[in-house]
């Protein structure tokens, strides 16, 4: 019996056949294809979680440093210092947004991160999962499985879609990451496999068409705040799905749609630094704009 799958439909069929969660099917698939022992695999999962945790806190614990390009640094601390009466997103989401900013800062200053699925979108999955883990009654094992669930979705986007901004825009990076996190959150909070895929489908649909337009071609602005919106999108999609709200577009279709939309974006909006935010007058008009950013 093989646990390998090639699309969401087959993944859900395996879940139903074996009465398993998405993470459990993905775990069996990985064990089967890698030949790794269960304990070795969980050691690798734990290593990822440790690096993720440290990158979500690094910019809060340590003195913030400027990014390599000098465009960001210190934003997660600013978020943490926001007075409580202005936290309109609520405690958990606020914490997750703060963490996502920290990962982006860590990444942009050559700290160690876990690409999930990419370095540019590395804040979404750890911030979403770790903030909810802290807040909800979720066990460490459920957190580990949550990360594996996110991996299952990331695998589908890598295999059948795209996770490269240069190929299909930011929707392929932050969009995929947001879908991965949405599905993982749904599972961690007791959702069914169908609710996980539905949450992922909603998350992607809400970021469909998001362009990749990094200022000066660097993974800094607007990438950092896009990680924050990826988190907010994941929370939103998970909550909608857990409430029973469904997208009529199945996840496999949504992944195809994302690629089609991505490929119809002009090249200037696919990580070339030649369109969108990268070409804003305040950014392009030389020093004034840059100083404003610094």
């Amino acid at each position, binding site marked *: 019996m093989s646990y390998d799958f090639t699309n969401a439909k087959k993944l859900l069929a395996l879940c139903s056949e074996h009465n398993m969660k998405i993470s459990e099917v993905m775990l069996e698939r*990985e064990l089967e294809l890698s030949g790794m022992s269960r304990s070795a695999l969980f050691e690798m999962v734990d290593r990822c979680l440790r690096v993720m945790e440290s990158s979500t806190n690094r910019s809060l614990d340590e003195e913030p440093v400027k990014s390599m390009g000098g465009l960001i640094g210190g934003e997660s601390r600013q978020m943490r210092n926001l007075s409580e009466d202005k936290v309109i997103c609520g405690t958990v989401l606020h914490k997750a947004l703060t963490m996502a900013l920290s990962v982006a800062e860590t990444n942009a*200053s050559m700290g160690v991160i876990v690409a999930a699925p990419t370095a540019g979108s590395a804040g979404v999955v750890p911030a979403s999962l770790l903030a909810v883990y802290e807040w909800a009654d979720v066990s460490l094992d459920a957190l580990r499985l949550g990360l594996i669930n996110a991996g299952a979705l990331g695998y589908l986007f*890598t295999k059948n879609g795209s996770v490269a901004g240069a190929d299909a825009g930011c929707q392929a990076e932050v969009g995929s990451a947001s879908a991965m996190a949405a599905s993982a959150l749904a599972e961690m909070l007791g959702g069914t496999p169908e609710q996980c895929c539905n949450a992922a489908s909603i998350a992607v649909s809400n970021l469909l068409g998001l362009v990749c337009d990094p200022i000066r071609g660097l*993974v800094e602005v607007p990438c950092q705040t896009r990680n924050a919106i990826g988190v907010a999108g994941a929370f939103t999609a998970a909550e909608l799905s857990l409430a029973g709200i469904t997208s009529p577009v199945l996840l496999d279709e949504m992944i195809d749609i994302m690629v089609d939309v991505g490929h119809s974006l002009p090249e200037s909006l696919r990580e070339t630094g030649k369109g969108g935010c990268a070409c804003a007058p305040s950014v392009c008009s030389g020093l004034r704009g840059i100083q404003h950013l610094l």
Partner: protein
Amino acid sequence: MKKNYISLFDVIGPVMVGPSSSHTSGANSIAWTARQIFSGTPVKVDFTLYGSFADTFRGHGTDRALVGGILGYRSDDVRIRNSFEIAKEAGILCSFTPDRDTDVGFPNVVDIVMEAADGHSLLVRGESLGGGRIRITRMNNIKVDFTGEYSTLIVGHRDEAGTLAFITSRLANHEINIAFMKLFREKKERGGPAFTVIEADDFLPEELEDELLSYPTIESVDMIEL
């Protein structure tokens, strides 16, 4: 060893020093691989950067990642951030030349020329393919094509009859299964310099190097193990 499926840890990973899998992690892997291929210790390394590497190498830490690779650091090693200082202390002179004019036919490309104290040198060209994956496409004047994702054996030799048969017989002796094998040569006709690149499913034992070097047409043997 190599896997032919997308793993959980391809998606949740790599664990890497930021900011970019293609510009930082990929650049580091190219330089790391180049360093493995080079016999001897480099005292001088020149990097020529093409495509988007040339435009954004500082902001992406491509330069520090490249030097880190030469120092033998993998892409999750925080020492990459201080690689300039460490290389300087180690007496390795590094220089960077962005080349925005030459069309090398691919977005992220770097030429690495390593030179040892005795004057022997090697040029390695690498392409960063995205997600940290790379391809080596040139060694000196010879076009090559391998990824470093397998155990890789690189044999520099004169292009003469019998050489390949000797190499494969030694591999057979060690029960090493060949996944891919290709001979790349500089000239169109026989007798010139060539590289044979073998990507294997099995681990390459160290003694293989001396065994292969005993053959008269074989000039260099380098092995890359992940």
